[in-house]
């Protein structure tokens, strides 16, 4: 109660300190640099807690479960935890706040806005969008006698095999291999083969013919053209390390990580990296196009008004433009329409992103409450295919398990 005397905030003695929990991300680094500006503007103090993805998740599980009020603003993954958090009523309803004048909620892309809503109400504001693109090495392509990056998955397979044959020390293709980690990047393969995780009537679709082909293709590509000692627990840091160490020719990954490949401080091959749209499969080129991170307000926060002030500032047109110029793809249409918004992206990457936003699918994992569990189920055929087991049989097993999972969740 003592704090009310010095608080003087808008909502009944709230503190003038906004406690913000953020993930390790380029976006966070940028925001931290711009914070003094916000603090000067509003007279508020911002306290940032920064954690790795897994630790962030655990932190929320513990603190929000206990109804703790010491988090005001939370950065979270709408597709991973959004449904669970909203269902548990951890996220405050932002319906009234998004009407803020001059902030312009209608400027946000429809897909990301839909993914951050729960039961029709906005509970988060998307801050980072992601599409899957093809990273490739220009020099290795030229060496293998290829004039342009592959346009179809079949061409990718042939090109990867060609590079591997020409350069035994270099992998033709690298991508995530961890059961759970690979699911998001595999999704674009799945859609481009004409499949999905769940069909139109809410039933498991991972046993479909298209899914079986996609599993076999992804696993086969890594098994045949991947790194020599491939492991089955690579996430993006491991796969990216192989690519940036110059040990792979092609790599399919989220565009939001492109700076890791083009920054000379992090990449040995920075000047040789090219980007292309996701190669087309039998059903065309269908990469995912998703909001990977959003900001929400902890429903138990006693400082909600100031928390919103922070979100309003961090997601403003100016901040989004600044973020995008330093390489973080945002969710505001106006910034994408502004030539300045894409000015700092490599030209081929900007083109790839433009193509992806047109044909993109709005999710990259099953849209369920218990996402972690679902990812492990639908990811199993991937690691089976990578280790040379029968992908179709593994897909059938996963299909039965996933249907049971969906039935359990619907109960």
């Amino acid at each position, binding site marked *: 109660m003592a704090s009310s005397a010095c608080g003087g905030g808008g909502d009944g003695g709230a503190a003038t300190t906004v406690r913000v929990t953020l993930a390790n991300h380029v976006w966070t680094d940028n925001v931290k640099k711009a914070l003094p500006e916000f603090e000067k503007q509003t007279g508020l103090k911002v306290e940032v807690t920064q954690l790795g993805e*897994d630790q962030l*998740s*655990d932190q929320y*599980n513990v603190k*929000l*479960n*206990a*109804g703790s009020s010491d988090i005001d603003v939370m950065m979270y993954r709408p597709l991973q935890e959004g449904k*669970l958090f909203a*269902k*548990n009523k*951890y996220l405050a309803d932002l319906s009234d706040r998004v009407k803020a004048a001059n902030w312009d909620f209608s400027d946000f892309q429809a897909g990301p806005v839909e993914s951050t809503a729960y039961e029709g109400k906005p509970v988060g504001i998307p801050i980072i969008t992601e599409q899957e693109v093809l990273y490739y090495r220009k020099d290795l392509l030229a060496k293998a006698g290829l004039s342009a990056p592959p346009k179809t998955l079949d061409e990718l397979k042939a090109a990867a095999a060609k590079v591997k044959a020409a350069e035994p020390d270099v992998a033709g293709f690298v991508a995530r*291999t*961890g*059961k*759970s980690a690979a699911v998001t990047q595999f999704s674009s393969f799945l859609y481009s083969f004409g499949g999905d995780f769940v069909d139109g009537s809410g039933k498991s679709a991972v046993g479909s013919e298209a899914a079986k082909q996609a599993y076999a293709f992804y696993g086969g590509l890594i098994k045949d053209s991947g*790194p*020599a*000692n*491939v*492991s*089955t*627990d690579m*996430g993006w840091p*491991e796969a990216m*390390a*192989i690519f940036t*160490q110059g*040990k792979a020719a092609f790599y399919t990954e989220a565009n939001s990580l492109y700076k890791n490949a083009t920054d000379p401080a992090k990449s040995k091959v920075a000047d040789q990296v090219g980007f292309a749209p996701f190669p087309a499969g039998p059903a065309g080129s269908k990469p995912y196009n998703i909001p990977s991170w959003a900001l929400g307000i902890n429903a138990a926060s006693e400082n909600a008004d100031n928390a919103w002030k922070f979100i309003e500032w961090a997601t403003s047109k100016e901040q989004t433009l600044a973020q995008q110029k330093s390489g973080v793809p945002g969710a505001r249409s106006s910034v994408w329409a502004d030539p300045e918004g894409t000015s700092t992206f490599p030209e081929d990457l900007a083109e790839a992103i433009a193509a992806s936003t047109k044909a993109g699918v709005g999710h990259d994992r099953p849209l369920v*409450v*218990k996402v*972690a*569990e679902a990812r*492990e189920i639908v*990811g199993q055929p991937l*690691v089976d295919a990578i*280790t040379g087991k029968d992908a179709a049989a593994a897909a059938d097993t996963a299909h039965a398990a996933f249907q049971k999972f969906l039935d359990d969740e619907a109960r």
Partner: protein
Amino acid sequence: MATTTTTKPPRSTVAAPETPGWLRWVDDHRKWLFAAPAMTFVAALLVFPLAWTAYLSLTDAEGSVRAESEFVGLANYLDVLSDIERFWPAVGRTATFTVVALLFEVVLGMAIALLLWRPFKGQRWVRVAILLPLVATPVAVGMMWRLIFDPNIGLANQLLGWFGIGPQPWLSGQYTALPTTIFIDVWQWTPMVVLILLAGLTSLSDEPQEAARIDGASTWQRFRHVTLPLLTPTLTVAILLRGIDALKTFDILYATKGRGGGSFHEVETLNVYAYGLSFDYNEYGISSTVLIIFFLIIIGAMWALTARRKEAQR
């Protein structure tokens, strides 16, 4: 005569009529009163969480601990005990990890302790060097070995390459991951066993050794029939401490293989499984059930080991 002087005089003669009743009560119960703060502490920090976990294990709590959950009786226990896909393999891995790691640590620890027992030049430096792994944080140790064992850019495979041996999958292989984590555990915790056994060895008296030597016993005979029996109580303490620790290893496994113990759950022990159930799946009921069963297993193992220790001391 001696026995009669030590027997207490009847209470009535000691308690003078002016001593207030409450003081007498305090005097009679002082051993409980002095222990009360500690007992309250234990109750708050041990009994309450344990009771809460036991309660959760009887409900279908999931998603959020604060969400409404139903009492389901022993259904979770039936589910867990009949789960041959995740639970029983995890029990098997926990047992394998504990027994194999313990075996190596005790045998190696004993060998090193015997080497360090008699004074030699530079002994102090060797002792310090041996203790180094012990003072490192297990998570940092896990990270370090993860880099060393990286299949493509790790030091271990480069070293093997110099000797003309092909690259090994180490942590990334489906069947090599568990042995590799056991190796890391042995690397980190053998020094602790050395420390305990060395303390035991240096406190042994020299006379039995000398007597055996005069009788013409060989080095091995002296170790087998003199040193080892005398050292048994210390050895049991080392096994007890290290065994319980190995049984509940988590940090090394999590730091090297991450959530779920790898894509094939290759290092998923009971601890890693329970962690995943609550933090990845948000299935608090089932997770609590696994933890309670695990708790009973630890109690059982502890009981068996302490029983052996008492037997050995007899």
